[in-house]
């Protein structure tokens, strides 16, 4: 019996010393590596982690599924469980929501989206632990799927208030300062309609938010960090972000001019970081490089790019590239969001050591909205592209040093919609138009990005209505929308001209009525890194009539010799031949498109 007692005791001691859980090598420091050769070959899928799939019901605290602005329960485990769904769709890169710990809730709205950072060093527990994040990324990599992290450096969540009336408490209402401080319009009316001030979100003041008492201004308003563990309005981490100097402290933007855009708090009381401060810059580099080192991420989607000065990006981006390269990760992709239709402004971040690419918002406005949804002239597409591809274009034409090896103007991230704008079908409830826009998305140059739910025909309006729970779709892989995206992704992957070919517009029209070519837009993809590969895309953006690539008896001139036979990949039964004069006239039904390749290049079964 003594022996038995000793044996059990030893077993107990051993078990309690070693632990029994199998962490599958997900613990500890792990090497990181390069998973991408050429980002133009990727198909990005943007998902909101909270809304994509719920795989772990243990982290479903404060979940209110029927409230669009509250947590819904999605997590990394859910993403992992749906990798089959994503792989079958043809997705090769996931863009996931910010992972860092957020302010939990504010004014009845939750930080489910991830853009309200409270602690840069901790994970948002709603989405899972580092183990589940690592495992999800590992399993994605095993399928050839890369993972891009959404990051925010412009601001943090609503972590402090301006003690405007110097009473040491956060007041909801401090009378009268808005119109007094705000500059007046020429007619004398205040530019800010605010007649009272919330100390968490006061109006922008170029001097910095000022304290104010009944006797008038009283100097800069001190900032006071909130301390409410329940809503996680807590002093931010790492500690540099608990210093006043880490913030610009000028209050909320009320006019999107250059100064306020750079230095103002983002609406909602999101505190603008003083990214000119070297300590802040270094801290931001450190925390985000660390997340890549921990999880082997493949890229950053950078929020609110234009709200941060160029000089920051010239420091941040090279530092990230350098540090990751030292650890063995190259081709790390950094693309930014500049929520603006100003092509020159958006492109300005792609020069001189800044980001590799940007989210192509000007195209969203000028093409997706204006042309595909509102039926404006396709000439707008050509004009926009010329600003990108032409001489002295708005976008960088040489790869960033140490970057992805592709010039920014050929690696823009294209999209039809995203989490910040209403879905395509919300603005134009026409599946044919959507499918046509998707054809455009998957055949133009750059990198296509599909917003989750597009493949299920979601049609939500503006934020947060456009952030539906994907699980209500049942993750159907048989739905026509899913099958269309899958097919387009497959075609893009199969024809190198579509990923690497240079772009040449062969037809664009400024006509939108009953003219023969109204709504027609056609472009070639060939040459360049695609070598001899060739593709011709012809789209009819008109929703009410068939159009063709001709006008006033002049047909579309293409770059291949006369007599070249084409097959429409989307309908292999359709073949056409280039006329002897090098022209091609193609009739395209309303809201549809054709994708021609040489008959000798056709890949069967796509």
């Amino acid at each position, binding site marked *: *019996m003594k022996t038995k007692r000793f044996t059990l005791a030893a*077993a107990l001691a051993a078990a309690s*010393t070693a632990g029994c859980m199998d962490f599958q090598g997900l613990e500890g420091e792990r090497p990181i590596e390069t998973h991408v050769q050429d980002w133009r070959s990727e198909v990005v899928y943007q998902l909101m982690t909270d809304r994509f799939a719920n795989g772990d019901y243990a982290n479903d605290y404060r979940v209110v599924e029927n*409230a669009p602005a509250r947590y819904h329960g999605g997590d990394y485990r859910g993403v992992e469980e749906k990798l089959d769904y994503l792989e079958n769709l043809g997705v090769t890169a996931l863009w996931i929501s910010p992972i860092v710990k957020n302010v939990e809730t504010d004014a009845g709205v939750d930080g489910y989206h991830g853009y309200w950072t409270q602690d840069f060093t901790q994970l948002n527990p709603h989405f899972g632990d580092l183990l589940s994040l690592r495992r999800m990324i590992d399993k994605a990599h095993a399928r050839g799927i890369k993972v891009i992290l959404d990051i925010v450096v412009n601001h943090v969540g609503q972590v402090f208030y301006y003690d405007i009336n110097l009473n040491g408490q956060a007041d909801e209402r401090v009378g009268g300062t808005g119109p007094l401080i705000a500059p007046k319009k020429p007619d004398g009316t205040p530019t800010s309609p605010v007649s009272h001030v919330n100390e968490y979100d006061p109006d922008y003041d170029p001097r910095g938010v000022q304290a104010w008492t009944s006797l008038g201004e009283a100097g800069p308003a001190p900032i006071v960090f909130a301390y409410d563990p329940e809503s996680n309005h807590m002093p931010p981490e790492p500690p540099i972000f608990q210093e006043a100097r880490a913030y610009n402290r000028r209050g909320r933007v009320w006019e999107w001019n250059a100064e306020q855009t750079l230095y103002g708090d983002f609406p909602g009381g999101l505190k603008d970081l003083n990214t000119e401060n070297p300590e802040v810059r270094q801290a931001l580099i450190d925390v985000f490089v660390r997340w890549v080192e921990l999880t082997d991420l493949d890229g950053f989607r950078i929020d609110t790019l234009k709200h941060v000065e160029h000089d920051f990006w010239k420091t941040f981006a090279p530092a990230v590239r350098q540090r990751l390269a030292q650890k063995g990760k190259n081709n790390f992709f950094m693309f930014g969001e500049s929520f603006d239709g100003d092509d020159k402004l958006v492109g300005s971040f792609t020069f001189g050591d800044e980001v590799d690419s940007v989210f192509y918002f000007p195209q969203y406005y000028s093409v997706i909205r204006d042309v595909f949804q509102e039926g404006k002239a396709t000439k707008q597409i050509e004009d926009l592209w010329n600003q990108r591809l032409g001489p002295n274009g708005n976008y960088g034409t040489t790869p960033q040093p140490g970057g992805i090896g592709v010039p920014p103007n050929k690696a823009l991230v294209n999209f039809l919609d995203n989490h910040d704008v209403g879905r395509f079908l919300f603005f134009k409830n026409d599946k044919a138009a959507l499918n046509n826009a998707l054809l455009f998305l998957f055949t133009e140059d750059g990198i296509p990005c599909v917003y989750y739910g597009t493949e299920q025909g979601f049609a939500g309006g503006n934020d947060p209505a456009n952030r539906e729970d994907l699980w209500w779709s049942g993750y159907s892989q048989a739905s026509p929308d899913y099958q269309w995206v899958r097919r387009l992704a497959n075609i893009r992957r199969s024809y190198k001209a579509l990923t690497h070919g240079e772009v040449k517009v062969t037809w664009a029209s400024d006509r939108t009525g009953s003219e023969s070519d109204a709504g027609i837009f056609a472009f070639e993809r060939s040459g360049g890194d695609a070598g001899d590969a060739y593709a011709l895309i012809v789209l009819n953006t008109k929703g009410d009539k068939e159009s063709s690539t001709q006008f006033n008896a002049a047909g579309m001139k293409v770059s291949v010799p006369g007599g070249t036979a084409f097959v429409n990949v989307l309908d292999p039964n359709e073949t056409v031949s280039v006329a002897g004069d090098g022209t091609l006239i193609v009739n395209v039904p309303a809201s549809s498109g054709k994708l021609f390749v040489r008959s000798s290049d056709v890949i069967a079964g796509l």
Partner: protein
Amino acid sequence: MNRGAWIIGLAAFALSRPGLAQDEPAPPPPAEPAPAEPAEAPKEPAEPPPAHPPMVRGKVPAFMGPVRVPGKKRELDYPRSSFSFGSYGRVVVASDGRGGEGRDADVVARGTRIDEGPYAELELRRDDEWKKDLSSRIVTTLAIGGPLFHYDGKFDAKLAVRNLYLEERGIGDKGLSVWAGSRMYRGDDIYLLDFWPLDNLNTVGGGVRFELEGGKSFAAWHVGLNRADDPFQYQVRPRPAPQNQPGTTDVEILNRPRLVSSLKLSHIVPMFGDKGGIKGVVYGEVHRLPSGERETQPGRYEDVPGDSGMLLGGQVGLFTGEHDTFVNLFFRHGRGLAAYGELATPQGTSPERTVEGATETRIGIAGNFEHNPFAVVVGGYFRSFREPTPEEYNFNNVDEGIFVVRPHVFLGDHAGVAVEGSYQAQQRGILNIATNQPVHAKLWRFGLMPYLSPAGAGVFKRPVLRLIMAFTQRNEDARSLYAHDDVFARRKVEQFYGIGAEWWFNSSSYGE
């Protein structure tokens, strides 16, 4: 033969109850009363000693009988009644050596007793013997938790009614007893850990126990209900008063008590000249929770599916019958709802909102050896718990264990010194983001307890007055389990300098 078949039938009946289910994460068990050893109560020779000598069944306790006159045999008068008071209690006050309060530094669910806080049970008991071999007992046990009024100045107390039941014995067969009410229902413990590793149910219900002649074997079946005040089982919402009356009335949207049934079979093989023996126990539980619905938002409801679970376990013990020397080994495995304590509710569920897939496994050891003037008492357990959620990596998934050894030296009959060494560790299913390694909390503890024991020399002699000195070294992960600003999140070594008292007498709470 007939009795044996009946016992087997009972077991089959209880264990065939519907299915496995899942349940909630096992929150730390409620503070449980330490085992009480009624010093004056007659001991049944065949029972394993100690920690808690069982209630003597089918016998009239000596204190209940009339005064016997030597040399004269007289008839007993029936009915006869008695009223008794029993208690378990401990009062401890301690300093952390830095001017602060001494605190419990354990990381495992059931840590060592050495730094436990005050707790007491006051038991009031009425016994009636209606005729020979036919009796009844009414037990009321009030439990009191700290802090005490004399400590914090708050004129109140944490009170709970734990036992409140009636037991009747000898109806139909002198070995048969039945009971109903609220009852602590448990077997042998690991004294050093204040932990019942095999069976420890707190329900409102009833049970039957049948003991074979000689008291060496018994079967006990019980069924009870729990309804934790948690949205998993209970939800109340205000609704407009009926009949167009002003105001509101509370409506129970969800009210689904958990049904818990247990069966225990115990047998003792006599040894050591019938003073000691080998004790074997087979134990099982089934748990059932009906389906229901709850409101998630005003006017919105979701179905809450039913749940179930099952637990099987066993115990093997050896006791000498002398000097409280024994060793007990425990094992149990629970699935579904039975993986959780009867009053616990889950943190995470399966995708179907059930606890199917939850598991808990325990193995434990308790033992004592005394050879005046020396003794050594040991305790330990290993526990593994998994939530039913498909995600294996979460905070509530736990592997943990502890081993404690406490040698005593008796300094004469009324004093002694105990030295305690222990090691405990807990691994959770997450990474410590600071170290990038699994959270693996560990702590070592060394304690010294000189004590006075008027009842004599022995590990389980009570009452005792004692001084307590304990030093606990905790690793970084142990500290990481405490919130920012808690000194336990910073200090590597904890000290505990205390003075305390512990007693138990005449308590029935620890019978089977």
